[in-house]
């Protein structure tokens, strides 16, 4: 049988698995591999991380559980499922939380967001870095969406989680939670009128073949996080711990560069495929969900949203 590594363990060398749901050529996976390669190089092979891409270890929530139990050592996941373990991370799913990518990253690089990575320890993780996952946008089969009114009566697939459904409902649409594997055929047959995602996933899922209207409304910017089992992390020397943190932070620049490239390429591909890209004024969309944000500001996310607002004003 072929396989990398195997058998002999030599002088304190460690073999880790990093769970990744995206396929190998996806920019985020490439960044995972960049991270793994640099860690291997700079520890002279003492820490050998194997990136298990394409959901080999399971879907994101499963892999998070595995990292928690120590079955896998690391993973790259969206902050959305992380919220099921550490509720504070649910804030990132709020619509129009950030004005733009710049606002998002000024917040993520600031003390508050870096402190949130530390909060992961309560659930047995150490967060090493945030990754970019772009902005989520609506796409529809027949009816173009240029204002929230256009969503009226449309069945839009959203990812599970009450915020996502609340958001589409507040805008006037009918949210449908559906298994991701059924979305393609549902767009095809008309069970769904539309769905929402970032540009690279819209293209890689093939949904662009069916839903020809893409609305650049950027309703959510849900970042991702690279994390490690806390016990594994604590067992390392302080020098190695720092090295992991450093390489992870360095990989962020690489990941964002790859991500931006991928978005460009996706947009070019969308234009080639004759997709109607609707550049919209987002004010109306923002107003339609302002109630949701106000509620969150008063409730469980008051502190973190104050920090986000503070970054906006500075």
């Amino acid at each position, binding site marked *: *049988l*072929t*396989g*990398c*590594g*195997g*058998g002999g363990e030599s002088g304190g060398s460690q*073999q880790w698995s990093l769970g990744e749901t995206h396929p190998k050529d996806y920019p985020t996976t490439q960044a995972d591999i960049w991270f793994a390669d640099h860690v291997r190089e700079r520890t002279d092979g003492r820490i050998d991380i*194997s990136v298990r891409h394409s959901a*080999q*270890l*399971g*879907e994101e929530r*499963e892999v998070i*559980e*595995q990292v928690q*139990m*120590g*079955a896998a050592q690391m993973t790259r996941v969206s902050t959305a499922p992380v919220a099921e373990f550490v509720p504070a991370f649910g804030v990132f799913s709020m619509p129009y939380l950030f004005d733009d990518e710049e606002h998002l990253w000024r917040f993520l690089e600031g003390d508050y967001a870096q402190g949130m990575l530390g909060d992961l320890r309560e659930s047995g993780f150490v967060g090493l870095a945030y990754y970019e996952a772009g902005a989520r946008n609506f796409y529809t089969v027949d009816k173009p969406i240029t204002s929230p009114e256009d969503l009226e009566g449309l069945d839009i697939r959203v990812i599970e989680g009450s915020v996502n459904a609340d958001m589409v409902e507040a805008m006037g649409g009918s949210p449908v939670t*559906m*298994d*991701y*594997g*059924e979305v*393609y*055929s*549902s767009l*095809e*047959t*008309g*069970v769904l009128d539309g769905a929402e995602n970032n540009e690279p996933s819209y293209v890689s899922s093939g949904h662009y073949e069916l839903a020809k209207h893409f609305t650049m409304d950027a309703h959510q910017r849900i970042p991702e996080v690279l994390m490690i089992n806390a016990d594994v992390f604590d067992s390392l020397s302080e020098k190695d711990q720092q090295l992991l943190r450093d390489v992870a932070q360095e990989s962020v620049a690489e990941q964002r560069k790859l991500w931006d490239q991928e978005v460009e390429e996706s947009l070019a591909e969308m234009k080639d495929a004759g997709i109607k890209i609707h550049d919209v004024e987002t004010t109306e969309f923002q107003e339609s969900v302002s109630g949701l944000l106000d509620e969150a500001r008063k409730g469980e996310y008051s502190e973190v949203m104050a920090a986000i607002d503070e970054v906006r004003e500075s």
Partner: protein
Amino acid sequence: MIGDPLAVAILIGVFVAALALRIPIALGLALASLCTALYLQIPLPVVGQQIVNALLTFPLLAIPFFVLAGEIMGAGGISRRLIDLANLMIGRLRGGMAMLNVMASTFFGGISGSAVADTSSIGSVMVPVMKRTGYDARFSVGVTVSSSIQGVLIPPSHNMIIYSLAAGGSVSIGALFLAGVLPGLLLALALLGLTYYLSWRRKYPKGERVPLREWPRVIWQGSLGLLTPVIIIGGVMTGVFTATESAAIACVWALVVSLVVYRELTPRGLIGVLNRATRTLSSVLFLIASAGAFGYLMTQLRIPAALTQSLTGMSDNPIVVLLLINLMLLALGTVMDMAPLILITTPILLPVATSVGMDPVQFGVMLMLNLGLGLITPPVGGVLFVGAAVGDIRVEDATRGVLPFYAPMLLVLLAITFVPALSLWLPSLAGL
């Protein structure tokens, strides 16, 4: 730990040992996974997590729904009326009763998708009648079990849903359903042809005439059952519901017809239906669940990739590769059941098939018929056993009865393997 030969030996060895010791396949898969995880120092809860999570898959819901629909049809009188309708259509030909058996299975296959349900439901009615009217028991059982294999080809088919899952959800269930139609009908024709020939040679009797005044009732009542596939496929194609939801609708439809139109199903009868569905599901779902854990460990050990590599290394010739795949599946099918084999072999063989240019949808149809054949092949053939039971004969005699039917089935298998259009034409018409 990756690719560790000892771990691979533990995983495969424990499983095979469990099989040999008559431990249920599903339990064998779970125990092999646990032992391997123990050796690899993978935390044991992960095995449990994989077992539970294998069930937490929405498209999987179609399985309980179709099984339940099949049970409702049997208890609610739909199966019986389908037989009456088939009788009206071809009962007067020589060997009419035998051909009616094939036709009834074609209809039934369009609703339940389960060969076991077909054999137990159609067979338990038809075989005794055939025996009484002058057919020998072996032949009756042979016709029954071989024609029931249509159920896995003609949509809907829960085994196709299992395949779509095993292929990682990348194969459209709608396309698979449509792809099965022509091969299923071709199989029906081939079986009808052979049945007619054998009936003529052996001078089997003609069926009874249905009085003309009975015709409207028989046609009306039979078509209500036949509407089920129309509703399922029509509903999916027009976007009223998803393939998974269609299975729930099939249950509701069968229930409405049985309770309101035929009025054959009582509330107590309904509990019996649910009870039997649970019995059937108990074995299928446990298999899927523990195959999830087994598959997880196989992936951990990179077994599928290694096997795929060695298979593709054997030949570049598509014809040779596809024949090899078929032989391998036929061999496995003789000793193992359909659902676990779909789950275990798809990740290994699908990449091989696509590497020689086969469409995943076509591969799915080929896999269905191939493993379907395994259901009627000794030493382990679930449908064959049920057939022997309903025919009240020994498994050896049932096997002898099936023997002539292998020929048309293997011919259809070859046609599916080497004529892509047979599977892909209908889905392409529908734009899938």
